[in-house]
């Protein structure tokens, strides 16, 4: 517990819109040890990005609002920190890589300026020194330093994401949150960027939360995996546990949706149905309308997260009942 760098407890985030209140994150718990990599997996709209932005306290407000919860980073609750304290954490101790490199760089500033800016703010260096350091960072992500005077539109998508990575890592953060860092890139570039991130993460001994919907990427990079559905973590396990023995019907469904070369399956089994309407979540277990193993109780009772052994956490009534009936014996 004490060597946890990040502890998110019972986080609840709502977006209040004209069409209703969107319950984006719904009592979420995550913990992350120093140096660990956590994969946060889930469909679009599961609340992954909202969770990440909550850690940096960058939820756009309005319409977003953190209703409840605690986010401990290095033992300090970030939700109680002042704006000034947060500024010293953002980009310095926690940084973030965003999904779309095409839009996450400022079009009217040179990439050098954009990397140097964070360095200047957090490391107390003057403009010139910051720029020198920025050029080093560029070289580190594989871009010649001469290009620091160029503007974002002069770079390709993959190159832009390298610049974004350089910005994120320029102050040796303790925690890096990467939000679908490769989704917007070509497949060939994806691997390069992923390798680069992994190398740099090792080099700086950074903890990481990798947000993705791609289990393949998780398998390559992460130590632990949290599966997210409708704003909750429904399964939390080590990489090995999850890949060898997925427990939650949703997680099993995710594996059923990807082709497997080793097993001989006639056809893929996609998860039926769609993500529930976040303004009107189903009662009981939020997954029950889509769950192939749903029972009558799933419509009524909300499951709680339980440990099925070796810290493999699952939030599903199927396992709750097993442990309950075992306890009854």
């Amino acid at each position, binding site marked *: 517990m004490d060597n946890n760098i990040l502890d998110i407890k019972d986080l609840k985030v709502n*977006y209040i*819109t004209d*069409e209703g209140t969107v319950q984006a994150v719904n009592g979420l718990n995550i913990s992350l040890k120093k140096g660990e990599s956590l994969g946060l997996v889930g469909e679009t709209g599961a609340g992954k990005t909202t969770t990440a932005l909550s850690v940096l306290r960058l939820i756009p407000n309005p319409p977003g609002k953190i209703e409840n919860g605690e986010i401990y980073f290095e033992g300090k609750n970030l939700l109680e920190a002042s704006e000034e304290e947060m500024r010293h954490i953002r980009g310095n101790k926690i940084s973030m890589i965003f999904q779309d490199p095409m839009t996450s760089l400022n079009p009217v500033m040179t990439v050098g300026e954009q990397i140097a800016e964070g360095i200047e703010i957090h490391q107390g260096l003057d403009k010139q020194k910051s720029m020198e350091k920025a050029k080093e960072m560029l070289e580190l992500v594989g871009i010649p330093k001469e290009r620091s005077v160029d503007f974002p539109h002069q770079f390709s998508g993959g190159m832009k994401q390298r610049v974004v990575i350089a910005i994120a890592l320029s102050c040796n953060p303790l925690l890096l949150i990467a939000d679908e860092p490769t989704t917007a890139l070509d497949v060939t570039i994806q691997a390069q960027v992923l390798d680069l991130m992994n190398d740099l993460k090792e080099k700086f001994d950074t903890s990481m939360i990798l947000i993705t919907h791609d289990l393949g990427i998780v398998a390559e990079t992460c130590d632990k995996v949290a599966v997210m559905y409708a704003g909750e973590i429904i399964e939390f396990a080590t990489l090995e546990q999850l890949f060898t023995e997925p427990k939650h019907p949703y997680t099993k469904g995710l594996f059923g949706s990807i082709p497997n070369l080793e097993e001989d399956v006639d056809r893929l089994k996609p998860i039926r149905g769609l993500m529930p309407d976040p303004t009107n979540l189903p009662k009981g277990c939020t997954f029950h309308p889509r769950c192939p193993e749903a029972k009558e109780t799933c419509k009524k009772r909300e499951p709680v997260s339980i440990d099925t052994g070796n810290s493999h956490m699952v939030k599903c009534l199927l396992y709750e009942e097993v442990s309950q009936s075992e306890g009854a014996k």
Partner: protein
Amino acid sequence: MNSDVATKNNASTKTKSKKKRSQWSEVWRRLKQNKMAMAGLVILTILVLLAVFADVIADYDEVAIKQNAAVRLQGPSKDHWLGTDNLGRDIFARMIHGARISLMVGIVAVSIAILIGGTLGAIAGFYGGKVDNIIMRFMDVFLAIPSILLAIAIVGALGQNLFNLMLAIGVSSIPGFARIVRASVLTVKDQEFVEAARAIGATDTRIIIKHIIPNALAPVIVQGTLGVAGAILSTAGLSFIGLGVPKPRPEWGAMLSDGRQFLRNASHITTFPGLAIVITILALNLLGDGLRDALDPRLKQ
């Protein structure tokens, strides 16, 4: 958060005819929710009614233009709600007859501009290439002349009467409409339903009338509403410097210009017609802004 609504809306512009009606009722529904826009619409309706029934409310020959030295420069009273001017004419009566001129010039001028500018813009956008280049360069030249100057020059050259006034203001707002229509034609032109129409052998004219114009309508409606406001301002401006409707016809700009000499002792002559202009333009702007939001929810903030 609005992207769902936007795509739905987009889809309904694409599938035509039957869904067209539901799209317009959707626009109306959104417009109704906008209190400011509805306020604008109510004010405009009242103004139009006043203008239409101006003769019933106050006779043109007997009240609006008949001079009466006995009651000149009187302030607001029971007999003359908004007072009288320097020639003893009832200002309220003149204002409602003035509303006729303003609204008529505004609407006719914008119609001229939409007709000519819209056609030019549609041709330029639809055919592209050299035609586009020639038309739009010509429009650029027009745009280089500040529109009120152009209108002044046209009225100055053609002579001062109601028709020339409408023509001058209409012509000077042609380039704006040409640009807007061209832009929306360009975005519609390459969409699949137009290609589909072409694939089944629809003629150019048919494609323009059945497909392109309905889809270019939204920005034209918005710009048209705001354009009427601009035209009314120009009319008042031209009348103010004595190049508008010939006297003794009451026109708001001319009325407040007449009041200038009496600003010290009878400022109501100047104040009230000005307020009429402000209220009219305000109402048109409110409605125009509301229409823009209702027609394109993606732009709403």
